[in-house]
């Protein structure tokens, strides 16, 4: 089995993995970082989005070995010193989550969205969230959360 090494939430990690291990499986099962979720098997739902070298990425679409040497941030790595990331805070302030299952991926995508489209209007925000499915909120409050984070990030 190959060995894979990467940085996850600021910490260097290295493990032997089966070649077919997906990044999301490595995060959830080997590192037990279960905040990253699996909601589908066709890379549609976005529950597994993490940041790979700063870009949002569906961690079910890449193998763990493809992340060799990468800098990974998961939902567990966002809050610093007990302080929520402005996007996490915005989701809480705006009731942008209900069951919480899509939330980690939604938050990770939303951060990347705001970074890359700082002045996005509502239509642009909605379009950019196309890769993340939420079944609970009807997206109304998620969009409001992103709009708040545009000002606070």
């Amino acid at each position, binding site marked *: 089995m190959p060995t894979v090494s990467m940085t996850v939430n600021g910490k260097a990690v290295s493990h032997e993995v*089966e070649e*077919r291990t997906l990044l999301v499986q490595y995060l*959830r099962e080997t590192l*037990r*970082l*279960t*905040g*990253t*979720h*699996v*909601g*589908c*098997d*066709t890379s*549609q*739902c976005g*529950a597994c989005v993490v940041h790979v070298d700063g870009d949002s990425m569906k961690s079910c679409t890449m193998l763990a070995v493809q992340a060799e040497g990468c800098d990974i941030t*998961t*939902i*567990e790595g*966002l*809050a610093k010193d007990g302080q*929520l990331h402005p996007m*996490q805070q915005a*989701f*809480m*302030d705006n*009731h942008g*989550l*209900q*069951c*919480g*299952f*899509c*939330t*980690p991926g939604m*938050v990770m995508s939303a951060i990347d969205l705001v970074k890359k489209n700082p002045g996005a209007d*509502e*239509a642009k*925000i*909605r*379009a950019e*969230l*196309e890769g*993340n*499915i*939420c*079944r*609970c*909120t*009807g*997206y*109304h*409050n*998620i*969009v409001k959360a992103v709009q708040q984070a545009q000002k606070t990030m």
Partner: protein
Amino acid sequence: MASETGLGARVPRREDLRFLTGKGNYVDDLNRPGQAHAYILRSPHAHATINAINTDAAAGKPGVVAIFTSADLEGLGGIPCGFGIKIEEHIKRPQITPPHPILAAGKVRHVGDPVAMVVAETLAQAKDAAEAIDVDYGELPAVASTAKAASASSAVHDEAPDNVCFHWQIGDEAATNDAFSKAAHVTTLEFVNNRLVPNAMEPRAACAEYEPATDQYTLYTTSQNPHVIRLLMGAFVLALPEHKIRVVAPDVGGGFGSKIFHYAEEALLTWACKQVGRPIRWAAERSESFITDAHGRDHVVKAELALDAEGNFLGLRANTVANLGAYLSTFGPMVPTYLYALLFAGQYKTPAIYGDVLAVFTNTVPVDAYRGAGRPEACYLVERLVEVAAREMKIDPVELRRKNYIQPDEFPYQTPVIVNYDSGNYQASTDRALEMIDYAGFAARRSASEAKGKKRGIGFCSYIEACGVAPSAVAGAIGAGAGLFEAGTIRFNPTGSITVLTGTHSHGQGHETTFAQLVSDKLGVPYDQIDIVHGDTARIPFGMGTYGSRSAAVGGVAIDKAMDKIIAKGRRIAAHLMEASADDVEFKQGVFNVAGTDKQVTIGEVAFAAYVPHNYPHEELEPGLEETAYYDPANFTFPAGMHIAEVEVDPDTGMVKIVDWVAVDDFGNVINPMIVEGQVHGGIAQGVGQAMLEGAVYDENSGQLVTGSYMDYCMPRADDLPNYRVDATTTACAHNSLGIKGCGEAGAIAAPGALMNAITDAIGVNDLEMPATPERVWRAMNRAA
């Protein structure tokens, strides 16, 4: 006046911190020492005999711990159906309840029917081994069409040769026919209520373990109602007594009905973990969810509304063919009957109503409750009829509704179809909704859209639902196998904090926040001193769980009654401490005081005295301050309101854009408006999904689910949906102590009717099926032209 955390306050959710930081505790996040992994081999065929299963090669694969097929399950029961229609006058043909084996025995009846379970050291090894299982299938013709099931040449079950599960009726057929014979106008609609896949974002999962020293089983499962699972699995499937089974439903990632039911995997894992002597875990992949989670809706309907020349409703009748799938799921037969046709009166004084439902088996996934469960189907039927009748009679659709509404002074109102509405004010919600949408300005908005080359439409939906399920006596009378009360416990801890145990279950609804608000408000204990516990049969006295918008209206009332008992006992303790008569002691905002004096003790001091009872009325009271109440409601609750959708249709492409949405709901009293609005938003999104995007499609010949993944089944995305403008009018529920009606399903009930009325208004065509895809809209427009 509400405090910052009291009733009516928009308290941010305490659940959010763990969900936002990746610390949620979902079933698939669990890891148990020594665990093995299960993979379930499922039928690729809709209908086939199983001639032989050879597991020899698979058993020799690396990592395999055990392989189980139906032959290994001798002596176990099948998956039970918890509902059997039984009221004689409603039965045209009695219900047939065929066996539902845990693993398919001799025959598979839908794509996804479980055939074998492989347990292995890793999931990958279990999957690899499953590929080596050789199943010899003999394919049979599939029955996959709802409309044609009863005339199909093939039978899903030998017990039901014409695929009819039951034939059911409600209402006065003769009186209804008489009303139609006197009608000045009859509006007729034939339509399909499209089949939906619930698609909670968390796929179902389970993990089971057995402790030989105590003979205890623990099942962690993605359930909306752990006690119900314990009851069904213990009593009907595994023949295990309930005290030997603990069922835990930790954080659950959405349910929408699909996680009410007892599924085969729960029983299979619980049984097998003892056989292999190790914990076993399983999680569905999404494509597996599509072919195993109970689906929703799936009706073929002919509905008629009779009106006099002035537009007064005289009668309503409907014939429905309802698809129940290959097996009867837990509440399957209840949904297209008592949860459906009992709402045919809608908000109206229709004097004569008759409903006829033919329920059929098909080689498809079982159909059961999905958000709204029967009531969206009823609302769609009524509100499409009313809207089309208004168009045909050239009466304003709002005026036609107003003319026929049950008036505010007519409650309680007995409908012709059993249910008795306790309270409501339909004129008020209509007034508010029209004001918000600016109905008077619609003509100008339509002209403006036309100037841009777009067709604009407005659609109304005056919905009602029966929820807060349910009076147990009613549930039992109509055929439910269980009661539908709820339990709540208030446990004061010695130093004054409170642990609340509720039999309801939160899978997104925010009970940890709202129930703490409820308790803080009444007992005067700070919100942050109150914790809510749910989802564990070992910790909760009992509970029927969360569905049917019942958590606050039934579970909340149970908690309220437990608080009454706490106050009653606390008053006597306080009287003792203050050397006063209990009759003279008043309780307000956390303080007991002797009326007319300045003598007082706080409820925290009373709790301490109850647990450190040095100075205590031992001769009349037991120590401790913990009370449990069970609450069985006297009636359903009847939330109602009006939703209005405005759309623009692009005539070149058939694309529909929702440009405005107004929802005015009467949920009775509200604990946390922020959470209630969130429930409305999500419900609307699911209703919009049904109306415009979603549809489970089976190939009629092969019985294959052709919309079996997110590649093919269109889930609503952020850019499909508008912002919603939500407001409320309030008439309190007349028969529970909180005046709460429930809010969980309203959006999903109201939205399809509002949206389809809007789209058909825009394009000037009444005949349009859901989901109204651009292709369907474009074809309908061009058919009309």
